[in-house]
């Protein structure tokens, strides 16, 4: 650790800070251990507080801006989030409480720009797209399991909604 001539008042020790420059290109890992991407930019506000990060997810994918309230742990090696970003649920299988495969997540509606899911848009072969309200989600892991009180619409592609 470098020695500095310190000019501080009530700030914490420099040893317990993180060099923001070192965060660039570091991994962003979700709560469950999914690598979301790499840090491209670190954003601070005019009051000098860390507001969020811009995450690159690959060449053809849109960049992600993650607010600091979703940070779990910050180190010079990686940023571990306190959530799994909703984007990770895209393409996940959706199962009923009885284990029937309803389809796959095609789209996600959120409450404003937060990570809180409002509705899932599910699509399966021979079934029209349908929405599943977040209140019917029992668990989200490798797939999404719905609660027993959810009754799936039995619509087929030849039927009109």
């Amino acid at each position, binding site marked *: 650790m470098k020695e500095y001539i310190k000019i501080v008042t009530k700030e914490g020790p420099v040893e317990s800070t993180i060099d923001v420059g070192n965060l660039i290109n570091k991994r962003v*890992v979700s709560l*469950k251990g*999914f690598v979301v991407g790499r840090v491209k930019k670190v954003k601070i506000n005019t009051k000098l507080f860390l507001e969020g990060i811009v995450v690159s997810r690959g060449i053809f994918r849109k960049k992600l801006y993650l607010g600091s309230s979703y940070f779990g742990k910050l180190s*010079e090696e990686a940023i571990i989030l306190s959530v799994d970003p909703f984007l990770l649920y895209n393409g996940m299988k959706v*199962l009923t409480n*009885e*284990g029937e495969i309803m389809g796959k997540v095609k789209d996600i509606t959120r409450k404003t720009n937060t990570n809180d899911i409002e509705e899932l848009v599910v699509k399966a072969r021979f079934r029209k797209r349908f929405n599943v309200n977040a209140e019917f989600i029992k668990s989200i892991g490798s797939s999404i399991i719905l609660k027993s009180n959810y009754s799936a619409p039995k619509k087929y592609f030849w039927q009109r909604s």
Partner: protein
Amino acid sequence: MPPKSISGKDLNEAVTSDDILGKDVIDLDGKFIGVTEKVFIHPNSLDFIGIEVDKGFLRKELSIGKDYIERIAKNAVFLNVRVAFEIRGMDVFSSLGEKIGKVYDVELVGNKNEIKLIHVKTEGKELVVPKGFVDRIGHGVFLNIRKNELEIYNESEKTTSQKTEK
């Protein structure tokens, strides 16, 4: 016409082997494990002991005890655990989020679904992670120690085992 019965019990609520065989097996995390291939019944007590799961072409079958089964639903068998073997291939991260490597083998406590050791392959080396160092498991395995601490632990374990051999 209902079938004749001499069971002395109401079998309407019971499930049959036909209801179990061929069904998807889904773990606590919602992960598809395989398809039920066999149902095990104890020869003396006649109790249901567990199931055997076919995990697919060229993959070994997995037997699962009934204590790990949460319920048998209409379309699937749900487990109340995550199958420990399924962490193979997962990324391993240190407490700081450094990527340590990938899980390539898992040692369990007896025949239980309890992890004893995790073998991790990292940059040509092999590191052993005891259960105590595992913080949580999701899409990846998070440890509660740093990468260098794990390496120091492995080095010291190596020297201890070499000394005991001598």
